[in-house]
């Protein structure tokens, strides 16, 4: 394993220290391991807390988006203590929304934290994100995973919370965005966690994993590498089969951490062309490495069938390390 780290056991803590140094507009509690806006808690504002297992998501804390995020160990959900501490740090009396990606660990740890918060008199609403159409949503699985749509839920609910939206409304909006979103991902290579020290899986030189999540796990199936255009068509077909979108959609072309922008833009070109063919109009688009899986070379496509209100909130100012416009 080759990484720019000091000690595999201490990567998250040290990265958090760097994040704190690089972003004085955030407050990082390196003891309890959470990140909050420096101005938190704001009286009367609904707080948004993300279950986060990648430092890059810490990049989405700030005005117009998240109030806090709490990274667990790499690919491990945070613990209830941490989540509780972050929840308390952002509660301004108007309640707190937990944005939880649908993974067994995240769900359970947040559930425990929500119970602890309720004991302390904090109203918590949970928005479960489960947009990954690669997983069948059935009793045969733990349900669809939360992937790229998390960013959309964060951005859109974050903008509404900034405007003064109430707890129930924000939670409902988050669930609406999630229900209106679908994602599908491909991996060209496995990522390597610092603790494991070797790639999560081996992949022959001409094969890829289809239907991967964002924790380095293998996908639904292994396939031969195909041209980007084919992969884009298959991914969009999977999303459009699962969710019958007609547009306008917000499109996220997302790299999983090790994919250069030149490839992501090439992919976006194919996405735009194919959605045109299928008669799905595009309202907004975002291209980059946002919802990542360490150094995995891979990409995910997310579509969100957006209402006018969602588009308005998408366009609203946001000022975070990872996403910034209008501010």
């Amino acid at each position, binding site marked *: 394993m080759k990484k720019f780290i000091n000690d595999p056991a201490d990567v998250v803590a040290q990265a958090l220290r760097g994040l704190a140094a690089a972003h004085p507009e955030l407050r990082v509690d390196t003891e309890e391991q959470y990140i909050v806006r420096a101005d938190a808690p704001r009286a009367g504002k609904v707080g948004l807390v993300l279950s986060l297992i990648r430092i890059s998501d810490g990049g989405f804390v700030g005005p117009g988006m998240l109030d806090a995020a709490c990274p667990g160990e790499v690919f*491990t959900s945070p*613990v209830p203590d941490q989540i509780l501490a972050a929840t308390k740090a952002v509660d301004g009396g108007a309640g707190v929304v937990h944005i939880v990606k649908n993974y067994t*660990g995240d769900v359970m740890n947040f559930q425990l934290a929500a119970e602890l918060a309720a004991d302390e008199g904090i109203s918590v609403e949970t928005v479960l994100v489960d947009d990954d159409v690669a997983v069948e949503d059935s009793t*045969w*699985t733990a349900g669809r995973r939360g992937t790229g749509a998390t960013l959309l839920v964060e951005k859109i609910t974050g903008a509404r919370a900034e405007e003064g939206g109430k707890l129930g409304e924000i939670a409902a909006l988050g669930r609406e965005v999630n229900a209106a979103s679908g994602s599908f991902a491909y991996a060209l290579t496995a990522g390597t966690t610092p603790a494991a020290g070797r790639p999560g899986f081996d992949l022959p030189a001409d094969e890829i994993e289809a239907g991967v999540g964002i924790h380095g796990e*293998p996908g639904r199936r292994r396939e031969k590498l195909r041209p980007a255009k084919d992969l884009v068509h298959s991914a969009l077909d999977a999303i459009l089969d699962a969710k019958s979108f007609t547009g306008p959609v917000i499109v996220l072309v997302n790299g999983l951490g090790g994919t250069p922008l030149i490839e992501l833009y090439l992919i976006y070109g194919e996405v735009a062309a194919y959605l045109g063919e299928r008669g799905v109009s595009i309202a907004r688009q975002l291209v980059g490495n946002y919802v990542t899986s360490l150094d995995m070379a891979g990409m995910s496509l997310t579509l969100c069938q957006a209402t006018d209100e969602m588009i308005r909130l998408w366009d609203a100012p946001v000022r975070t390390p990872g996403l910034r416009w209008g501010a």
Partner: protein
Amino acid sequence: MDATLARDWMRAAATAIAADTDRLTRLDAAIGDGDHGVNLHRGFTAVVAALEKSPPETVSEVLVKAGTTLISRVGGASGPLYGSALRAAGKALPATAEVQPSDLVAALHAGLEAVRRLGGAAPGDKTLIDAYGPALDAFEKAVAGGAGLAEAAGAAASAAEAGAEATVPLQARKGRASYLGKRSIGHQDPGAASTSLIFQALAEVA
């Protein structure tokens, strides 16, 4: 069982997990995200430290403290599951210095119940339950037949190991491995493997 033996159990579990961290992580890499060994190693190291810092006086307190520590240090799926199991088991025990094998049967039932409530998994879903369930059955049967702790724990350990091995041909329906669909078949469930280690640790010290 007294508090000292309960602490020895936790220590033995920590040692076994430390030795098998890499194997557990490999099992998890095959059908999950490759952190199970590291997660439990971090957790049980913290458990041993917590128990050494202020040694509880009763078995009940040992297990509750161990569970609480796992919940607040592990994260992931295994933290809440193992943590809640140990907490529930501890809370089900009498607050006496010594507890009987029959008390432990009830405690282990409470632990399993907590796992099922929290995780919603059924037997055969390819989770730690598939080692825990058979182990508890064997323990209960042995105690009902008049066996002492050592003998019952030995029976539980064997059953847990067999249960863990029996997860290999199953398709996962819960947890991260369920995302793989049929591809989860042919691999041992990492949580079942670690459950087997924990029952083996009990058999060792009992």
